[in-house]
Each structure stands twice: as structure tokens, then as C-alpha cells.
């Protein structure tokens, strides 16, 4: 190799090496952060069972939440079932409420009026994403709670109000992902169906939606992930009573609402503090499970052919 050529090459190689180092460091940092986070939550969360001597079963299935006190056997009263039940109830119910609206508007936007969809509707939903959760909570408090009280009875605080507020919050996510899923269905499928004399609604129901189903499922699960992890807005309307919800309109609590209401009040190292970390661990594991499911769907439902 000629000398001049080598000189010209060297700085380039150095730049490449430096680029590799910088980007590699970023990747490493993120990976370390994620792992540290998981490790921290896990080690604190597991202290409940290792140091404080609570059996795992009584944590998962116990129905009494009063970590300041012990039961007859000297085991802290840290039954988390009410919160677990509360979290799952608001998550499932909010998805159930949001899905028909999300699906309906996604179908409208893609199949019925694409111009309106891209010009008006999508910017509107993006706006909805940007609204802070405390605003949703306030609206829930001033409007949803009195409204549910007026027709469903009770105090208005509870799973139902929480679910409605959450449904609003996850609606944009579920809608825009459903839009993507439906839009990804190849036009040739629709043509095939029209060519066979099927109406637009037959085409949507029997060709478009089944083909988009894995994408729509992903949308729902991402919505669930968001609903499951939302704290502030739920806490404002759910009633915050750590008891097994007996109806949709009695005050309840979720994993997140208990953590946000109690964490500031309990000293580090106490049983109460430890068990809050355990709740956080449950949240973390559930989020990981949701994400795992999304990956599995993604691999299975990847478009073929």
C-alpha cells in the first residue's frame, strides 16, 4: 500500500472506531440501567419474603392489607390479592370499554374515509396521547365519578370510574395501533373479496379484521400494559380502599394506587416499605409478561406469503 493512501485511511478508521465506542457505550449504559432497575426492584421486593418472613402464598392470596400489624402467628398482614384483583379488573374492563371504540374508529379511518382519517382524526388522537395523566384524573374526578354515581349508585369511586378514565387514556394507543394493523392488510385481499361479490362489511368482517387480528391483539395488549401501569389518574378515582372489590362501584385499590399513596409515608427497611417493593415487583413482572406476549404474537402473526 502506498504511503499517502495509508495516511488518508487512518483518520477514517479512527473515526469509525470512535463511533463504535460511543454507540456501544450507549447500548451498554441502557442495558446496565435496565438490568440494575430489575435487580433493585427484585432485591427489595424479595426482602418481604426473605427478611420479613412473610410466606409468598400469604402475600399472593391474602385478602387483608394492613402491613403495620401482624396476624395471630406474628406474620405481617400483607395480603396483596385486593390490589392484584383491582389492577386486573381495571385493566381488563378498560380494554373492554376502549376496544369497540378503537376498532370502530380504526375501521372508519382506514376503510371508510381515509382523507378524514389522516387529516383530522389522527392528529386528534395524537393530541390525546399528549395530555398528562393528572388531567385525565381531574376530569375523572369532576365528571366521571359524579356520572357513575348518578346511575350506578355507590360513591362513584371504584373500578368502574377507574376503568372509564383508563379507557380514555389507552384509547389513542389502541386506536392508532389498530389503524396500523388494518392498514397493513394488503389491498389485494380486499380486491379478492370484492371480486367475489362481497360487500364492504363482509370484506371487513371476514377478510380485513381476521388478517389484522394479530396486530389488533398487539394493540390491545399494549393498551393493557399502559392501563396496568398507570398510577395517578386511577388513584384519583378508584377510591383507594384495599379490599377485594365486591362490585364495580365500591371503592377499590390497584397495585399502583397503593404504591403511590403509601410510599412517601413509610420509612426504608420497614415491613411496609418492603412489601410496597413487592407490589412493584409484581407490576414489573406483569409488564414483562405483557411484552413477552407481544413478542410471541409478533413472531407468530408475522405476515406470510
Amino acid at each position, binding site marked *: 500500500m502506498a504511503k499517502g493512501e495509508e495516511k488518508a485511511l487512518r483518520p477514517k478508521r479512527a473515526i469509525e472506531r470512535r463511533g463504535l465506542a460511543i454507540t456501544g457505550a450507549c447500548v451498554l449504559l441502557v442495558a446496565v440501567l435496565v438490568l440494575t432497575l430489575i435487580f433493585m426492584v427484585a432485591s427489595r421486593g424479595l426482602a418481604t419474603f426473605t427478611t420479613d418472613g412473610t410466606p409468598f402464598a400469604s402475600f399472593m392470596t391474602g385478602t387483608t392489607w394492613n402491613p403495620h400489624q401482624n396476624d395471630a402467628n406474628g406474620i405481617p398482614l400483607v395480603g396483596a390479592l385486593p390490589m392484584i384483583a383491582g389492577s386486573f379488573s381495571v385493566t381488563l374492563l378498560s380494554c373492554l370499554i376502549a376496544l369497540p371504540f378503537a376498532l370502530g374508529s380504526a375501521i372508519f379511518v382506514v376503510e371508510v374515509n381515509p382523507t378524514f382519517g389522516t387529516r383530522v382524526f389522527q392528529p386528534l388522537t395524537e393530541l390525546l396521547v399528549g395530555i398528562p395523566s393528572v388531567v385525565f384524573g381531574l376530569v375523572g374526578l369532576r365528571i366521571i365519578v359524579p356520572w357513575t354515581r348518578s346511575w350506578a349508585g355507590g360513591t362513584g369511586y371504584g373500578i368502574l370510574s377507574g376503568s372509564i378514565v383508563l379507557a380514555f387514556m389507552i384509547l389513542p394507543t389502541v386506536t392508532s395501533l389498530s389503524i396500523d394493523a388494518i392498514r397493513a392488510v394488503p389491498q389485494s385481499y380486499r380486491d*379478492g373479496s370484492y*371480486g367475489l*361479490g362481497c360487500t364492504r362489511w363482509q370484506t371487513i368482517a371476514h377478510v380485513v379484521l*381476521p*388478517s389484522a387480528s394479530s396486530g389488533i391483539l398487539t394493540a390491545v395488549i399494549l393498551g393493557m400494559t399502559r392501563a396496568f401501569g398507570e398510577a395517578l389518574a386511577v388513584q384519583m378515582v378508584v377510591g383507594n380502599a384495599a379490599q377485594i372489590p365486591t362490585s364495580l362501584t365500591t371503592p377499590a385499590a390497584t397495585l399502583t394506587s397503593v404504591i403511590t399513596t403509601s410510599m412517601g409515608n413509610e420509612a426504608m427497611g420497614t415491613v411496609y416499605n418492603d412489601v410496597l417493593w413487592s407490589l412493584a415487583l409484581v407490576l414489573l413482572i406483569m409488564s414483562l409478561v405483557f411484552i413477552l406476549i407481544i413478542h410471541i404474537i409478533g413472531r407468530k402473526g408475522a405476515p406470510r406469503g
Partner: protein
Amino acid sequence: MTPINQGPVSTRPATGEGDAADLRSVILETRDVTVTYGTHEALHPTSLAFAAGEVTSLIGPSGCGKSTYLRSINLMNREIEGCKVGGQVIYRGQDVNAPGVDLFELRKHIGMVFQQPNPFHKSIYENVAFAPRRHGITKKSDLDQLVEESLRAAAIWDEVKDKLSESGFALSGGQQQRLCIARTLAMHPDIVLMDEPCSALDPISTFAVEETIRSMASRGICTIIVTHNMEQAARVSDRCAFFLLGEMVETGVTAEMFANPSDQRLDDYLTGRFG
């Protein structure tokens, strides 16, 4: 109102065609059909007539309006925004653009096979049973029979009879295309429109599809096929229409047209001087 597929089949010579001596049982006729996309007239007035049991090929260079013409017959152009169709498309004596004609009913009788095989994301069985199910056939034994009959008619039964529950995507391209033909035949159409059905296929699959088309014709189905392959047009079609720049230049019996084209432009096209 009489069901659209029971209208009369005329035996008079088609309007706009020269060979008046030829009395065919015309099932479909277009009179001065034009198609406009926005302001661009992609198809100038075109008049053609098609008879039952006859295969007609539409030939011409890319972009000359063959697909556009084909889509105006089963009103698929209505699915395209900004597309306007003028003139008359007469199926069994009735203008299909007249108010009161059920578009979906019409498409049951005028089937369509597309350039790219487009089976649904369903099993082979469900692909074929799809249209009959939507149109009200629910009895399992009826469907079973229809599926077998249609797959046989499309010359693919022997290849798929043991794997009817497998996905339509598990087939080769040529098999997928014949599955799409079977899917169309399951509606017992009078007319089948095919837009370059063999362009994605190898010679053996192409041959199988051509066989299928001939056997469809022998059962009285009117087939209109767009093709870029002159040999295919010669092999498979009874009649032929040559399009150029949105204009239907020449039409007639395929063999005669290919042997001595009357229009210089067709002669040029056949001898490969352009297109």
C-alpha cells in the same frame, strides 16, 4: 325484477363490430365504454361483445388500458377514488350501471382473477368456500361438494385434496393462482375476468392454467383474459382485442388477426417493433 343472471342472451351481431355474419350468443357487451381517472381519459370509447363459451384475449403494451377496461366490466373501478366510467356495459341485456342493479349480485356472476395470486389468509378449503358462505350456502355437505367440484374444475384437486385444511399460502405461486380460479368458479360465474393470470407463473403452471381456461370455455363460461404473451393469446383465445394508448384498435378472431393484421399498429406490435 328478474335476477340479473337470467336475462336474455342475444344472438344478434354485436354493435360496433364488423363481422356481422358471425352470430354468437352474446352474453356481455360494452358500448362506447370510457374510463377517466380524474381528468385523464385512460380508456377511449370501446365497444366489444363477448359470447358464452368463448375466450377473448386483450393484448397491447403496458399502460394501454387493458386492466382499466377489465375493471369496468365488473365495476371494480368503483373501488378506485376519482375513477369515472362512461358508456354502457350490458350483461344479459341489462346495463350494469343502471340504478337498481345490485353491484354485489353482479360480481357473483362476473368473477375476477388477479395478476398476483391473492388467496386469503385462510385454509385452502375456506378460500374456496369463502364466496359461497358469504352468499348464503351454509350446509356442510353442499360446501364440501362445491369445494371439490371447483378445485377439480381448476385442475388443482389432486394436488391439494389431502391438505384442504392447510393455509392457502402453503401452496406454490401457480397452485395459489389455480386456487384463486377455483375460488372464483365456486360462485358458478357466467363470465371470468383474468388480469394477466400467468405473469407470475412458470411455464408448467401457466400450461395448467391455460388448460383450466379451455375447460371453462367448454363448459360455457365466457373468459376475458389480459395477457402480454402473444403465444398464450394464440393458444388460449378464440377472439382477441388489441389496445393501444387507451384505444381499442382492432378486434376479431385471434387466428385471423394474428395471421394478417389489418391495422398497421397491430402489425408493428406483433412483429415487436414497439411495445
